[in-house]
């Protein structure tokens, strides 16, 4: 994934810094709480939400089960409609393809619609290295790009910035990139939006190449769908002569009809609107309307490896709504940057370690970036059981085992740093399978309870640093049971 995030510290370390940043905490709390209540009421308007959620899940599962077939069908329909389909196994290949396509047009700048896939592959940096300048046109992406910052939210990459900070970035940086911010710019959102409109308009009007992602691709018809708010998407999709869309292979759905589910669940889950201001659909090219040339780059970059994992593959159902980020107590406090990936929050904690593998410190720590409260699962419009995948990935990090990386099956070694945990689990297993030992141990623990320390020594210190040790009762439960029931219970307890 993006080189921007290379060398990120593990989640606990990055989060520790973030939670001490009071501005960041305030910004995140304000934004996530604003959207939470609105989402709940947008969802409550639909009495069949549960059925829509189930249908969305089934459509995605069915597609993933037959992904090869639907990708081939998609390629055929896009080609028949006048588009050209390219396949990219990883980020480097996708970047090479896009850079090559841009160069072939003779242009040295592109306008971009907000896209997670192009962020994931670090397209802007790759194009820059080839002498091509990519202009982000989504307001939040613009704030991130001008502020030389990193995205911290799927939907609103600049969620960590408040209006005052945005004003400062615009006033300071816009002139570097084009039309400067107006004199006396204030921090009212309407004025900030106006400044972005003026700044970007000249770029839209002269753009010859647009780069986008897509929210959905319809195999049956070859139609691509972009869901947006500002109109920057429409600008990039209709004004340039050449359109290049980079889309993850999991974004395909079988039929046109399937959009009736997602166009209801996505806007309500993401911006809490009945419908987002603009949705564009296009099928190949249209004579004398919009781009004359359309390229679709289908991106793997770890998705097929994720598909190979029986438990983890459900993460590929994700439609990038970001509802799970907005409800997550950990995200609200730690912020998006601590996740070290363009995919932050609960979905990022299960997606990044699968797309990138658990080799790096940050990726091995992400499955632990959760209290497993389950709020993410409740709001997910495609019912991804994020806690289940988190626990599964924790097991993989600790125990190692067979995984697929870049299409090859490999055996992962157990991670270092979990030796004490593994030893404790082995000891527990031994004790639980030897009832005599367990009984003796419990009695011993009860008798010595006044001597117990309040925190654990050695490797257990970190664990008990944030938790109270459970108090040991004066008498083990089984002894109590036997005493109260005169031994009748022993059989039951053993059975």
């Amino acid at each position: 994934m993006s080189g921007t995030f290379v060398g990120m510290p593990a989640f606990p370390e990055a989060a520790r810094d973030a939670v001490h940043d009071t501005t960041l905490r305030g910004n995140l709390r304000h934004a996530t709480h604003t959207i939470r209540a609105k989402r709940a009421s947008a969802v409550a308007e639909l009495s069949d939400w549960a059925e829509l959620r189930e249908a969305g899940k089934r459509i995605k599962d069915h597609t993933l089960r037959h992904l090869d077939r639907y990708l081939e069908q998609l390629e055929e329909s896009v080609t028949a409609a006048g588009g050209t389909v390219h396949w990219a196994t990883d980020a480097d290949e996708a970047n090479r393809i896009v850079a090559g396509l841009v160069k072939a047009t003779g242009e040295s700048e592109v306008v971009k619609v907000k896209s997670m896939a192009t962020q994931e592959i670090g397209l802007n940096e790759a194009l820059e290295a080839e002498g091509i300048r990519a202009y982000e046109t989504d307001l939040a992406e613009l704030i991130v790009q001008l502020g030389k910052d990193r995205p911290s939210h799927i939907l609103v990459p600049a969620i960590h910035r408040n209006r005052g900070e945005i004003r400062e970035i615009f006033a300071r940086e816009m002139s570097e990139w084009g039309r400067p911010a107006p004199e006396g710019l204030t921090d009212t959102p309407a004025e900030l939006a106006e400044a972005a409109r003026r700044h970007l308009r000249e770029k839209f009007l002269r753009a010859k190449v647009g780069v986008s992602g897509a929210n959905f691709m319809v195999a049956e018809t070859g139609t691509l769908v972009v869901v947006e708010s500002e109109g920057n998407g429409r600008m990039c999709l209709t004004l340039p002569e050449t359109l290049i869309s980079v889309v993850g292979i999991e974004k395909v759905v079988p039929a046109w009809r399937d959009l009736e589910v997602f166009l209801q669940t996505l806007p309500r889950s993401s911006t809490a609107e009945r419908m987002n201001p603009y949705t564009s659909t296009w099928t190949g090219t249209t004579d004398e309307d919009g781009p004359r040339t359309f390229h679709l780059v289908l991106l793997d970059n770890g998705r097929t490896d994720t598909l190979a994992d029986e438990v983890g593959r459900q993460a590929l159902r994700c439609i990038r709504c970001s509802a799970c980020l907005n409800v997550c107590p950990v995200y609200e406090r730690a912020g998006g940057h601590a996740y070290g990936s363009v995919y932050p929050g609960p979905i990022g904690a299960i997606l990044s370690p699968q797309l990138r593998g658990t080799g790096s410190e940050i990726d091995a720590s992400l499955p632990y970036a959760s209290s497993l409260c389950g709020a993410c699962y409740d709001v997910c419009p495609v019912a991804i059981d994020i806690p289940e995948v988190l626990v599964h990935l924790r097991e993989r990090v600790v125990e190692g085992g067979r995984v697929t990386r870049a299409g090859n099956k490999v055996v992962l070694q157990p991670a270092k740093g979990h030796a004490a945990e593994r030893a404790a689990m082995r000891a527990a297993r031994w004790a639980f399978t030897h009832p005599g030992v367990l009984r003796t141990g419990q009695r011993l623990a009860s008798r010595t309870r006044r001597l117990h320390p309040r925190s654990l020594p050695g490797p257990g210190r970190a664990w008990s640093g944030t938790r109270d040790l459970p108090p040991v009762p004066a008498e083990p439960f089984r002894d109590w049971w036997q005493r109260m029931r005169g031994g009748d219970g022993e059989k039951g307890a053993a059975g």
Partner: protein
Amino acid sequence: MSSRERILGRVRRALAGVPEDGTPYERAVARGYLREHGRRTTGQTVDLLAENLADYRAIVHRSDAAGLAGLVARLLAARGASSVLVPPGLDEDWLASTEVTRVADRAESTPGELDRVDSVVTACALAVAETGTIVLDGSPDQGRRRITLVPDHHICVVRVPDQVVASVPQALERLDPARPLTWISGPSATSDIELDRVEGVHGPRTLEVVLVG
């Protein structure tokens, strides 16, 4: 081996252990969700459309066929528009009462030229009541996608009740995926500053919808 073969091969290997599932697409997905939320008369559906359009800051007007030209003329005058983009197949009667300079929707026009036009008047393919959405499909009375994007003021005429559907599922049934579609729900907006909605970014900042019937 091409990347295409490599990716498709990886997909097949990834799914090799999954039990065979021959359920056809038609039966694989339980579609227990509703085709329409609630029961409404035709009139109530049109009212809901008006309400939801207004909720997202579109300005809604109602008119009968006879009053339409006068209304469009008044809207353009109130806006202070001196030029208006006209799709090739727009009903000529709609602009019969205005003197504003007409600019034809032509393939040769540059985006810069469109940027100098004040307003655009179009019809639509349909409108969705539950979401307050109008959908354009590039038919001759709606024109190229860019003409409803670059000018800052869009007047869209919806024939009620014929062009109004209740819900998103009903809309998709009636639309042709082969045409380039633009779904519009209110004027351009953003939630990018503190996750709160602000109207008015790149698309037309003023959207006026005329319900004619």
